[in-house]
């Protein structure tokens, strides 16, 4: 999780990723942020996210992003 939080903070240092739980629904992350996160996750965790996995639910919190990574790594 620390590695993920480091990546997320690198992309949006102004966001409290430890506590926010509606990052996409609340408009805190926009589509450019999501695309940037996807690209960084590919580099850092070796996971590729398909277009049908671009569900906002998967990006609403650091925990949901982590869950998506874990799912894709299996």
């Amino acid at each position, binding site marked *: 999780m620390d590695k993920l939080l480091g990546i997320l903070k*690198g*992309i*949006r*240092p*102004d966001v409290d990723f430890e506590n926010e739980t*509606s990052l*996409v*629904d*609340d*408009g*805190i992350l*926009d*589509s*450019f942020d*999501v*695309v*940037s996160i996807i690209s960084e996750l*590919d580099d850092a965790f070796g996971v*590729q996210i*398909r*277009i*049908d996995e*671009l569900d*906002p639910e998967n990006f609403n919190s650091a925990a949901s992003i982590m869950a998506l990574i874990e799912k894709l790594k299996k």
Partner: protein
Amino acid sequence: MRQILSISQYQEIVRRYKKQGTAANDYLQNEVGSLVSEGRIYCFEGEANVAFSVKGGIGSRIYYYVNDWDEKIRLPDDDCVVELLYRESCGLPEKELLYLLSLGFEKNLIRDQYCAMTGNCSILAEEGKCIVDNAQLIEDIKKAAELFNRSFDNLSGCYIGEAEYGPLLAGKCILIARDAGGGFLGALHHSKNGRVSNLIHLAVAENARGMGIGKRLCSYWISANSEDAKTRFALWVQRQNERAISLYKSIGFVHNGKTTLSLIKRKNENG
């Protein structure tokens, strides 16, 4: 060129062209549904590359997936604009820029995104010389739209057509600043995405500049849309517009590292 008729058709095309290492500027995502229903999204498929074209009030906005730098994507026979979004920390994607220039695009504007939270904002209290309120009449919206449309580059920015006047009025998306006698001083256009309020346009009438009207409008916008100290506000501003940047910084906005370079290609140059 073919029209995209469903979200699944768009997704199928993206699946076909999006590979590891693909250069892309497709940030449409949630917008695709409305663009499909409005009949505004088209696709130009090549062997390795694909371009989506979104028809706007003026010209077309281009989104692409490029896998082969030697294969030129086809573009609509229309004025076109394309945005290269990047993070300052990562630098401008030079290869994509060169590719777009090779298609005939020319560099236009650099804009930076600035953000603020209510708790960090310094805003002005209301005072009698400048009265700010939501637009009340279609005539107010028309006056504001005309000011915005002549103050900003319409191809790169958000041109406001007459069809939008009604929704903007109903949505209370336009603030108007007036003097004590009701004279028009300026306007602000905003929209809400989730809990973030975005400033789309801010312009002050030519004869009212230098009087703090911009800050009055921003102050009203922030206080009217603040739910708590953590309410977020965002805007894009042209990098060369030092006056506007100075205003936003004085309120508490900071550049969040996101930048966009717009490139345009005019119709008569499409050959």
